[in-house]
């Protein structure tokens, strides 16, 4: 009997293939600019993956992922700026701080769902951004902070990001193929039903929030050191919007979807930048179309293409088409 476990195994295999391709890309791409584009794509891929676990699997539609990336970036940035802490400590602290704040936010929104949850996380994100922007004495506000780098070569950064992304994806894979994956999806589909069956709803929701924000914080911290700079712009709602676009287009609730979405949206965004740049319009349209007609995103297309007709029903998973 195929079920979610089989599905996530297939998705992880696909993830592996994608990461392998990314690992080999430097053979074809050697100029620093494009390596940089790919690195930023990997930053988004981490945020997208994290948000996907929270929203796609656990069903908590948070509008705060960019805010947590900003929190992570500023944790490491402030530690470096004010106390000269080495980047590794800063990054570790970033993960801890964002996870803790994420945990608190998760507890706060426990009884909320749907648009109320979205609004509360939105308010939280904007408050965080306002606090960082206005604490000029500590954070230099909108001017941003200079942050020390870690590595000299761009290629080094490339593989550092890739390594972290791979670890993050592997971590999520192990989480989601275990019972946790089942519980999160059950919570998403019917919280009351899940509780009645014995699922610890509070615990898993909180974990989902903490994990998701921790990974976003990690991504933000890494990005801060890469860009040698952090600013409140990291936490703009439009950045969250990008993450959401990436996940919806790639395929929400799938392991490989966020990766596909992140690389596709960001890299093509850059590639088309010179040619007129209507890509954001196209992506926004795709989001609407996918939400309306095909919520499985691009990963859904890929999966269906790869299967013989009579086996398509076998891989029913999040959002299989209804008959009639």
């Amino acid at each position, binding site marked *: 009997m195929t079920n979610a476990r089989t599905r996530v195994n297939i998705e992880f295999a696909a993830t592996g293939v994608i990461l392998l391709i990314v690992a080999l890309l430097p053979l074809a791409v050697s100029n620093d600019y494009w390596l940089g584009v790919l690195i930023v794509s990997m930053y988004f891929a981490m945020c997208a993956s994290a948000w996907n676990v929270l929203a796609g699997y656990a069903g908590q539609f948070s509008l705060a992922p960019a805010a947590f990336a900003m929190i992570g970036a500023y944790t490491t940035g402030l530690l470096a700026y004010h106390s000269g802490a080495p980047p590794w400590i800063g990054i570790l602290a970033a993960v801890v701080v964002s996870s803790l704040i994420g945990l608190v936010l998760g507890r706060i929104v426990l009884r909320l769902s749907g648009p109320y949850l979205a609004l509360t996380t939105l308010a939280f994100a904007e408050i965080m951004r306002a606090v960082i922007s206005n604490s000029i004495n500590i954070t230099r506000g909108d001017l941003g902070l200079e942050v020390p780098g870690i590595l000299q070569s761009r290629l080094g950064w490339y593989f550092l990001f890739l390594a972290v992304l791979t670890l993050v994806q592997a971590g999520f894979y192990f989480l989601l193929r275990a019972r946790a994956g089942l519980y999160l*999806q059950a919570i998403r589909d019917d919280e009351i039903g899940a509780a009645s069956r014995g699922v610890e709803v509070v615990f898993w929701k909180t974990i989902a929030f903490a994990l998701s924000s921790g990974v976003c914080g990690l991504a933000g911290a890494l990005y801060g050191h890469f860009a040698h700079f952090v600013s409140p712009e990291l936490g703009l709602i439009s950045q969250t919007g990008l993450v959401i676009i990436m996940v919806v287009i790639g395929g929400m609730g799938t392991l490989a979807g966020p990766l596909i979405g992140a690389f596709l949206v960001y890299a093509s965004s850059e590639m088309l930048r010179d040619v007129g740049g209507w890509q954001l319009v196209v992506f926004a349209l795709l989001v609407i179309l996918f939400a309306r007609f095909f919520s499985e995103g691009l990963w859904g297309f890929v999966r269906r293409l790869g299967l013989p007709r009579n086996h398509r029903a076998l891989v029913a998973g999040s959002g299989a088409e209804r008959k009639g």
Partner: protein
Amino acid sequence: MACLSIRSVVKRFGGLTAVDKASFEIENGELVGLIGPNGSGKTTLLNILSGHLVPDAGEVLLDGAPIAGLKPQRLAERGVLRMFQLTRVFRRMNVVDNLLVAGCALGLTQAAARTRAEQLLADMRLTHVAHLDAGNLSGGQSKLLEFASCFMVPPRIALLDEPFAAVHPTMKEIMAEFVRTHHQAGQTFLLVSHDMPVVLELCPRTVCMNAGAVIADETTRTVLSDPAVIEAYLGGAAA
């Protein structure tokens, strides 16, 4: 010691007393029916037993230990499993996963849960739709799925809320057969239903509620011919 003891349970909503000092006991291995006209408080009582509502007064004891007010998760852990009247399944997960959630949440490993799920699916004649998302099942199939979810780990007591309502006779028979067989093997049930023939056939004993109070608690045949019960259904002593 009785499996489940309900003692003078009271529940009010504003000015309305939905459950009015309800008391009865369910012994181990009993299959007890719970009937009553609409508004009699059956579902409210069931919600109290499954942890979805907290009673205003009275006690509920499971094997002698008080359980009133415990959360549904805690009650599920203790073996009080409940089937809902408005089917609650995980629509975007497939049938197998729906069952796995129920099994794993109560301590089974994924492997053990799979085996058990296979067995239950065969019992429920759902094996041919095992791969479908629960949201794509027909109404009757969803009901069977939810029914089966209660039995991934044999419960201490299964609370069935109108399992036969608006269900195809074939599926009704599947569930009835399951209840019959497992009752003979010692499973304890509380069955809420409007379907008198089935209640008569399955339940040796029935409790009848009206207007929040227990008005009859005897062998099913006696209860069904009790004038007070007939009166409650036909009107007169209105809720």
